[in-house]
């Protein structure tokens, strides 16, 4: 971890609905995420974890407050600029893997690199090395339906980290796999964090994930209730 901020949130709030149906999902969140961090975001259902993750990832906009990503205010960025930011600087890992079913494991992993315009030879070299690191060598040509849940999540991890993002946002990445696979996936992400300096922010309920974190943030009713290192 360094002192360099990847993300800085100041007074971020998010409301859904209106009138009697108004829900305050986030209430004045102030938060800083540092480069190289390995953070969990815990809290009960409805506490605002996914909303916070979406706002940090530029998938949703706050009702109030300011978000800086690597020192740049992204609060009022256009849709295309946010899209570019996600492509270049943010990796996503989803609970349900969300691989593209018509692409092979290799093609899924290189997808964001294709978007970035990385030449084919460089893509091949980068993805092959990562496939070796995460134990997917030999499975390159398999389609998602031919892979186990753990293998699919590994492909999703490679897809997220291959473009060398500043931040990887992982939404309950171990929720759909058994504890052994979950443990292996966490080991893998911890290794990538350690060796490649990738910053991870996990939303999770899983004690296994929380146990591996170097920083634990707890959300409750849209507010940060705890932030321990």
């Amino acid at each position: 971890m360094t002192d360099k901020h990847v993300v800085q949130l100041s007074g971020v709030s998010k409301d859904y609905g209106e009138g009697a149906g108004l829900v305050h999902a986030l209430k004045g969140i102030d938060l800083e995420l540092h480069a190289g961090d390995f953070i969990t975001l815990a809290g009960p259902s409805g506490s605002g974890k996914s909303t916070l993750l979406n706002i940090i990832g530029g998938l949703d906009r706050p009702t109030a407050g300011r978000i800086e990503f690597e020192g740049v205010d992204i609060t009022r960025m256009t849709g295309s600029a946010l899209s570019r930011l996600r492509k270049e600087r943010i990796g996503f890992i989803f609970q349900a893997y969300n691989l593209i079913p018509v692409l092979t494991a290799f093609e899924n992993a290189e997808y964001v690199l294709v978007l970035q315009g990385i030449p084919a030879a460089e893509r091949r070299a980068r993805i092959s090395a990562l496939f070796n690191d995460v134990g997917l060598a030999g499975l390159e040509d398999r389609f998602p339906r031919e892979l186990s849940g753990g293998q699919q999540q590994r492909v999703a991890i490679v897809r997220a980290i291959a473009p060398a993002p500043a931040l990887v946002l992982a939404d309950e990445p171990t929720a759909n796999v058994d504890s052994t696979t979950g443990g292996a996936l966490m080991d893998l992400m911890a290794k990538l964090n350690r060796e490649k300096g990738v910053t991870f922010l996990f939303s999770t309920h899983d004690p296994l994930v929380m146990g591996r974190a170097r920083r634990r943030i707890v959300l409750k009713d849209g507010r940060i209730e705890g932030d321990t290192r």
Partner: protein
Amino acid sequence: MFDALPPLARVSWRSLWRNRRRTIITLSSIAFGLALALFMVGLAEGVYAKLIDDAIRLQSGHVTVMHRKYLDAPASDLFVRNSGAMRRMMEKIPGVERTKALVMGQALVKTPSGAVGVMVMGVEPAVERAASPLAKKIRQGKYLSSNNGPEIIIGQALADRLRLRVGKKLVVAANDANGQMIEELCRVRGIFRMDTDELDGYFVQVPIGFARRVFGLPRDSATEVGVILHDPDTRHAVADLLAQLPGIKGYGVHTWEKVLPEISGYIRLDRASNWIFQGLLIFLVLFTIFNTIFMSVMERGREFGVLLAIGTAPMRLRAQVFLEALFMDLLGCVLGIIIGSAGVLYFKLNGLDMSKMTKSEMSIGGIGMEMIVRPALTPGIVGWVGGLIFAVTLILSLYPVWKSAKINVAEVLR
């Protein structure tokens, strides 16, 4: 082969086959819609082509030279001189199948059983035998044999009315070009049946020399000199060319549409109503296709949400979905053209018997419509109909394409 495609096209191509059944149903809708449209248009064009061909061969061809005032008020004193020299000139033009000279006029045919006003067509039997459908419809006796003899062929209805048989005599009476009443005796050589009231009851053919005598026209004259072309589409160019030739300059040169306005009018009207019908059919087919494409886009919201979340630009996502629609449209149209053309080719070779579907004979402008229809398609028609369906399907896909990236990513990923 499709693995060699650029990544965007590869995703589109494979996505197309993810829901194989739905893709096949959509492809079939496009293909059969187009095939049906092509077949129906081909059928109509086949009817028109046969009708035109019969009419121009019975009459004076694709292009006709006549006296400048003849078309407005046909009369036997409005004739063309030196038809022989004119025809020799015409026959040198590339693409001319044959030329013909006709002497047309109104007359009265009389027997002891009565008199009937008829249209007399003076013809050269040798030319007509090769060109005209009427020469092939002789039911009793024979077709005309000489250019001058006092012989006549008449329709079955006229024969019945005047109680005529092959070999019987009748009198043809007419006012000649000088206003004199001329009567000529001739003998029935053959009786034809064209299955139209106008031709079978009120139309006769005589040798051209005999007609000149009846109407008091000089040797080598004709009321109409016509050109039959190998390619009917060249008629306007040939008409323009003819109009410039010395010896023709000063006469009226008309394409068949002007000489046979009932037929061209019928075709125009029928073609327009066909297009309306085709338009409705195409609309129904395309609505189904639109619905399928739209549904397939709507149910992939989560997939599109993921693509947008990981940094796919909305325009790239739209391009991917557009390519899917383009692939489907292209495949469907190619299949449709193959199926439609195969159907047209089959019935072009074997004929489609429409007589079982219509109770009575049909005629347009006195020309009977053949009940064995042979559909006809030209590359132009295939291109036009195929292009129309291709373009409209693609245009219809634009809304689903636009909608694909118009989603709330956070919402669909929740």
